[in-house]
């Protein structure tokens, strides 16, 4: 009897304590969780469900017919083979080269490291197909090499795609390795030396194991980028087709949405698998640096430093050659016949004129604003609210990483090109393109914001609460002032990606909402290489200017450590 009374008493207490929690702030939390989750459902999951449904839709109801039509053909297996051949070879080459490059900038005494580092990152500022563009100017039928030596060499096809893809994804892999190699515990290297290990053995037993997570992460990131990229294969692939270009051809060329969606679903599988494996492996990734670690001391070593100086110089020459030739071509009278200086391609006397560039900037600004709001809020809610929804919300926030841009764009057509859907109101506008870019890059923006949120001690929030500060006051007076440098970085990230991306927006643009990166593709396709080059140069110029302004702003307020290039 006594037991039952005390049990009832404790139940009563619990219930009473819980009602005490349900005050205004609790409702605010529920509201904020909804504010984060609903757009993710609407702009990520809903389009995906639509595209999945459409892939099963046939003339006589739901069925596997589309899959049978596509998967049963020889052509499909050829595309699958081509995609994997290009992707796996590119991934192998890039991971190897980028590791060496990062090693050179972090673990050797190669002079001018910062310059090399910056050159390696330049491709990030350019539209994603600029590599193919440059490669054609160098080694295409009318390229500088054939013109100079009178040869008939053609880069179109497999090797063209591989080379341009390697150049395209190189900076992404380099950034991952660079961050990983920057963290080093000198004590391990000293121990290794004292135990008599040579440089090679030290590398194999200390350096490589401590960067194995970076190797895996880079492998998966590069794999995903290459298999979903269609700009470079479109321009330099020639008759060599891959899955990504096939989606484009089926949808834009033949208006065959069903077959396009089936191939899109096929593309989704390896990407989702790669992202999932990467996340699972990363889960067991404990901090490799203890707090007692001592910073790395790099002794000069002539042979090693000489070798890597040559190595990074060669790679930088390749990157600069491809980008440089694009810039050069944009200033010639008529490539490759009249190479005298001319600004006439910057008059943009093409259809739509310079409007696509303004569209790009406008879209980029909107994407920056929406992106920083969405990911900042998502990071705050998952890091600070301690609600039951933290884990599912976190998962929802990083799901977009597993969705190829083309698939998301295609999903937007399926889901929103429908007058009965409220989003139809903005269908065919730059706003929807900006939203598409935001949710395509949501995972990365979110991770940047939430990492920074983790570093801001939650005791500030507690101190504010004890001092009588409301939730809103805490955010306004403490969280935002501490977060703004990171948030500026996130905004710049969304702007930059929005300026250069092709895959997510290609299906969403109309003649009046054409963006500059798409202009490059269309002009290149028409053979207007000079104008295409001029557009690429303008995109790079805008991105670099924005980066410079943001950098100056951050440095002025003493935030040198915030990195803007991701």
């Amino acid at each position: 009897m006594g037991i039952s009374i005390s049990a009832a008493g404790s139940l009563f207490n619990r219930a009473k304590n819980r009602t005490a929690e349900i005050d205004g702030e609790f409702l605010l939390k529920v509201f904020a969780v909804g504010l984060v989750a609903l757009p993710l459902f609407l702009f990520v999951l809903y389009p995906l469900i639509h595209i999945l449904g459409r892939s099963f839709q046939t003339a006589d109801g739901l069925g596997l017919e589309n899959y049978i039509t596509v998967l049963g053909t020889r052509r499909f297996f050829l595309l699958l083979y081509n995609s994997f051949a290009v992707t796996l070879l590119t991934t192998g080459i890039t991971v190897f080269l980028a590791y060496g490059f990062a090693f050179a900038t972090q673990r050797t005494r190669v002079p001018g490291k910062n310059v090399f580092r910056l050159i390696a990152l330049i491709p990030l500022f350019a539209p994603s197909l600029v590599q193919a563009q440059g490669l054609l100017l160098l080694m295409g039928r009318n390229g500088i090499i054939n013109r100079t030596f009178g040869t008939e060499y053609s880069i179109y096809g497999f090797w063209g795609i591989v080379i341009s893809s390697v150049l395209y994804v190189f900076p992404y892999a380099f950034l991952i390795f660079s961050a990983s190699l920057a963290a080093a515990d000198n004590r391990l290297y000293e121990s290794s030396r004292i135990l008599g290990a040579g440089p090679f053995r030290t590398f194999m037993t200390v350096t490589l194991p401590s960067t194995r997570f970076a190797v895996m992460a880079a492998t998966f990131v590069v794999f995903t980028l290459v298999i979903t990229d269609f700009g470079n294969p479109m321009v330099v692939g020639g008759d060599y087709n891959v899955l990504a270009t096939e989606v484009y051809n089926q949808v834009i060329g033949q208006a065959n949405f069903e077959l396009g969606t089936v191939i899109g679903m096929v593309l989704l599988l390896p990407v989702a698998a790669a992202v999932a494996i990467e996340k699972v492996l990363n889960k067991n990734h404990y901090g490799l640096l203890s707090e007692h670690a001592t910073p790395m001391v790099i002794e000069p070593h002539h042979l090693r430093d000489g070798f890597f100086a040559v190595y990074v110089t060669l790679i930088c020459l390749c990157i600069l050659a491809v980008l440089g030739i694009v810039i050069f071509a944009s200033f010639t009278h008529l490539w490759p016949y009249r190479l005298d200086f001319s600004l006439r391609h910057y008059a943009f006397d093409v259809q739509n004129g310079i409007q696509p560039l303004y569209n790009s900037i406008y879209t980029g600004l909107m994407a920056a604003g929406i992106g920083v709001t969405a990911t900042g809020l998502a990071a705050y809610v998952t890091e600070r609210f301690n609600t039951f929804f933290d884990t599912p919300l976190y998962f929802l926030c990083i799901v977009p990483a597993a969705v190829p841009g083309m698939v998301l764009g295609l999903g937007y057509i399926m889901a929103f090109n429908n007058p009965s859907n409220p989003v139809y109101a903005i269908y065919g506008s730059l706003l929807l393109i900006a939203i598409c870019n935001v949710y395509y890059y949501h995972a990365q923006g979110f991770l940047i914001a939430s990492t920074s949120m983790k570093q801001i001690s939650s005791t500030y929030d507690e101190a504010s609460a004890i001092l009588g500060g409301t939730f809103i006051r805490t955010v306004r007076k403490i969280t935002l002032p501490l977060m703004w440098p990171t948030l500026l970085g996130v905004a710049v990230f969304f702007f930059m990606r929005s300026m250069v991306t092709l895959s997510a927006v290609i299906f969403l643009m109309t003649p009046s909402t054409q963006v500059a990166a798409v202009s490059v593709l269309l002009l290149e396709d028409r053979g207007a290489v000079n104008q295409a080059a001029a557009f690429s140069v303008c995109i790079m110029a805008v991105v670099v200017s924005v980066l410079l302004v943001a950098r100056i702003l951050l440095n002025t307020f003493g935030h040198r450590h915030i990195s803007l290039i991701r």
Partner: protein
Amino acid sequence: MSLEIRNTSKFFGRLKALDNVSLQVESGSLVCFLGPSGCGKTTLLRVISGLLQPDEGVLFLDGRNLLSVPARKRNFGMVFQSYSLFPNMTIAANVAYGLESRKWQKSDIAERVKEILFLVHLEDQALKYPHQLSGGQQQRVALARALAPKPSMLLLDEPLSALDAKVREELRDEIKTLQNQLRITTIMVTHDQEEALTLSDKLVVMCDGKIIQEGSPMDVYQNPANSFVARFIGRMNVLPASTGIPYSRNGHTKGAVPNLLGIRPEHVYLTTNADSESVFKGTVMLIRRLGNLTRVILRLDHIQNGKGPIRITAEMPGQADGLMIGHTRYVSMPPPFVRILEWE
């Protein structure tokens, strides 16, 4: 303001961080929660502050139920272990934060900030930022920030543990002076027994989410409730009662048989000859000369527990000149100082 905590429990998953805790905090007193890490002392403080909701139990402040009052409306001041000064604000702005939250008049705020910074001797640092101050100064600002809105109670979460020994002692005295001056009810969490002994009016010793003993520092020191308290507060020789050492019943229940006995090292006396009655022959195993004090560890040759001869620690003032390892000494333990720590 007096605080009453009644039958309070808190779970973190399956871990019982607070286990049916009840406690009375008198108005104007300074109470220390003392215990090893993980004993629940910080959890209890956070429950009092309102940053955590208990799963069971009730809290009353002057008879008013506190549970329905959110942390920001409890009007408590709190100092965190890591200071938690807002890095984006000046010292003055940090101190003014709680006043602005309470919608004080601008002129009143300026006056109060000045007054409270003067109280912690930081009036000339008002326009600096936290990172420009030393650790001790930062903690003083944290104290000023907590006290500025005239809170009804002050909560200190290991406020001195991040400071080095010299500054810690200085600030400890300052906290005591301030608390005396303002007569503000104060609860302080610490794992440092010296801090707890010197500061508190009431000592609350915790272990595994439970209160083991509470009382005045002297009372807890002289009459530890069990061997855990005895070992945690100061040093104590813990001996099995079966050794036959005479002890004082000291008001304890008559008739019952003690299991463990304890004696503080400063009450263990060493002599060179066996003249008095209750002496045990011992061999010096280790001598630690600490300057003003010498600590000697001896093996009692004829007293065994399960594992072999018993070791005992004695402390004496001065340098204990001439004493060397291997010497034989006679150990006397006056019965009035031999406490019962555990009953059978």
